[in-house]
């Protein structure tokens, strides 16, 4: 999803409205993102990204601030979320989750670069979207995202639903195994009645779980997969751009 490439020209270095709208929805789904990631998303320069954020902030659609090391973050205001048709609570990205949000965004952007992903029409269902569906107090573990592959995509894995997990820090093997088991045994959609969440005999919701791991977490995830013995878990390394800049 490089929004500027192939979507028409920019006007004096500014992002066109279609690309801006798509970026607005992207930002809403990901809680927020840093300007460098917005620039990657737009397929443009950091000046273009900053210009777009200025436009959004001027319209009251977004706010921006330096929340941590690295470029400033941008997130949508209530008006911005309403413009996207999203019913999430408007709030800046939680400081404790900045690294995780950046990592998940990097995973999504990395997938966007693959032609099979773009051409296959895969749909990214973000954690924020899933969280909005589950009832308050539910103890289901939510994946960081789901990737839905349409039946008509023509790919070998068409029709599958993948659970995406970005692992920056190592949990215990037992906890990781429990999460893997929960992801792979779930049969119902998030927010469905509890009786339908795990129905024996029904096909699982997630055909596979894709773990994107930092070097610190890779060993634990590998051991958890071995302990579980499930062949439906794919493990890869997080992209280099997934990490927050080191504090100066």
């Amino acid at each position: 999803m490089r929004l500027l490439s192939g979507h028409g020209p920019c006007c004096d270095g500014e992002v066109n409205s279609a690309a801006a709208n798509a970026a607005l929805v992207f930002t809403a789904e990901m809680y927020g993102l840093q300007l460098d990631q917005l620039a990657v998303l737009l397929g443009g320069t950091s000046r273009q990204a900053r210009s777009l954020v200025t436009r959004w902030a001027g319209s009251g659609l977004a706010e921006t601030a330096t929340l941590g090391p690295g470029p400033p973050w941008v997130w949508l205001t209530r008006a911005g979320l309403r413009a996207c048709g999203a019913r999430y609570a408007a709030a800046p990205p939680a400081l404790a989750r900045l690294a995780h949000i950046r990592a998940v965004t990097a995973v999504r952007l990395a997938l966007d670069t693959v032609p099979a992903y773009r051409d296959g029409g895969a749909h990214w269902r973000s954690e924020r979207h899933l969280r909005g569906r589950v009832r308050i107090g539910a103890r289901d573990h939510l994946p960081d995202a789901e990737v839905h592959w349409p039946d008509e995509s023509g790919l070998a894995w068409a029709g599958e639903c993948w659970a995406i997990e970005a692992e920056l820090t190592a949990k215990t093997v037992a906890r990781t195994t429990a999460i893997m088991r929960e992801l792979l045994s779930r049969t119902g959609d998030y927010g469905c009645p509890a009786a339908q969440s795990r129905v024996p005999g029904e096909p699982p919701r997630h055909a596979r779980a894709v773990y994107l791991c930092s070097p610190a977490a890779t060993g634990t995830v590998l051991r958890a997969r071995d302990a579980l013995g499930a062949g439906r878990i794919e493990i890869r390394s997080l992209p280099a751009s997934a990490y927050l800049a080191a504090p100066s």
Partner: protein
Amino acid sequence: MIRRTRALAAAIAAAVLLAAGALVTVAPLAIAIAVLAVILVAAGGAGAAWLRGWPARRLYLAAAWSLPMLAVWLAATAVSGHTPGGAVRNAWLAVRHHDLLAVAIQLVPVAVPAGLALAGLAWSWRLAAMAAGAGGRSPGAAVAFDRRQWRHQVRAARARIAVPGAVPLLTARGDFVAGAVIRAVGHPASQLTRLPASRLRAHQLVIGGTGTGKSTLLLRLWAGFMAAGLTRHAAGLAGPPVLVVLDCKGGADARRIADRARRVLHESGARNVAVWPDEARLSLWELPVRELVTTLVDLIEHGTGGAAYYTDVMEAVVALAVEAPCGPPASTADFLARLDAGWLALAYGEHLASPAARQVPDVALRFRTLFRRLGPGLDGPGSLADADVWYCILEGTAEVRVAEAQARALVDLLASYVTAAPAGQVLLAVDEFSAVSRRLPIWQLYERARSLGLAVQVSAQSWHGLAARDDDRYRLAATAEGGIWLLRTPHPDPVVALAGQRTVTDSARQLTGRLRWSRSGTSRLQAAPVADPDLVRGLDVGQAAYIYRGGATFTQVKRLVAGPAALGRQAPIATAATTASDRHDRPAGPPDVSARPDVSVLPDVSVLLDAAFGPAPGGRA
């Protein structure tokens, strides 16, 4: 009674004043300190009993358990050449030197048992006064006291079951533990609701509405039966335990409970848990010939009156098909093929006499329709001996008539199995019995099952769900010799009446003014239900009243924590191809290796992931 309690209160107050006075003036200060320590312990004990809703017996027991400490202290004092009075004097010296640790060491061995015994006396007096309605400022005080004590007892029971390992499934003696006792009336007031394991092998009744924790209780009872049964089997006392659950509700909820039951029962020792008809089948055609004829005829609902003629005709035709010289049918298709006048004539070597010959096509039509609706679940292969637990899901909500026929067939199969192996331990649990009660006269099984080692456990949402007629309901309840579990239900009165009554003291107090009552009045003995129906109506989730032999124990049921869910399959389970023998090859206990998806079924996505994120770290498993 009222005057007596006032006298007791006055005596205790006098004792406290005496101790305080002695502390100041009369008695030696050291003795006064000892008396004060006893009173402090007594106050603490009584306060703890009030806060935790303990019976007075608990305080007496605590006092008894602390007596060894007193004995050791006396022995040590004698060995050291001191006297107990000298120890008290030492305590006083320690007080003067502000050495509180020394004070405690000197006084605890005496003060604790004496204080706890005194607390027990005071608490039992308080309980008796409130139970008689003689305590408190108004007659309503006793009611408020009872409600408050109930809340305290519930809180204590919940705390007890929350402690890891505090509520085992079976005790070291092999008794079944259901949970923590909230309140016991007519039963021993212990901390845990213990039942001899033999009760699980007797008929039981469970009544509770939706969302009251009935499934949790049932799972615990089943797990207890299985664990105790396996222990007996290992000791050579009985055959292997077999649990057959008929879940007559059906639907997704039944399957969710089946999955939970599978995991819980695995934990309690069951090796194979078969879920019928989703994952395993049974064969109706393994029944002995005579029973097969009866079962087949009973599967079809008949009318009354003039329809009896057609019932007889059908039975005759079915008997001809089943008892043919070539042997009984081996499958549904085989049986249906025999329901043909030509086949029967060939088999018996003669033409059928009228009118049976004319009715054969009609009989065949009815059976074709029946078996189409029943599905393949009863067409084998498989028998009850193939698994430790059979969890049978009957669609009693969506397809009542089909569920009734399936229940009938399954019970007949079970009866045949039990008759063939009478030394076994078999529990038939019928959940949501009301869905199939119309055509499943389970009390017939009740009456002949015990001698065969078969116990029947019936559960229903309400008293009225047990059976269509009141006679049948009472018959079920009266023969539940293993006890009745009563969860929250709006109409507990018939069951509560079965629990019986106890004699209580009821006091009337004189009204002396506006909302003022004197402490004089009259008392009388009267009967009150052992299990208070209002308490039953107000039970919370996970609370149950166990009614047995004229007593009731209110219990906070301990939920069994099941192992993690088995991984789902990539493709729907091929139920048609699954046989009981296949299932037996699986190792028991989660994770269920056979449930893991075949990786080769999943397409390789490495191309995509490698392009996005690079190669997999550590290689592909």
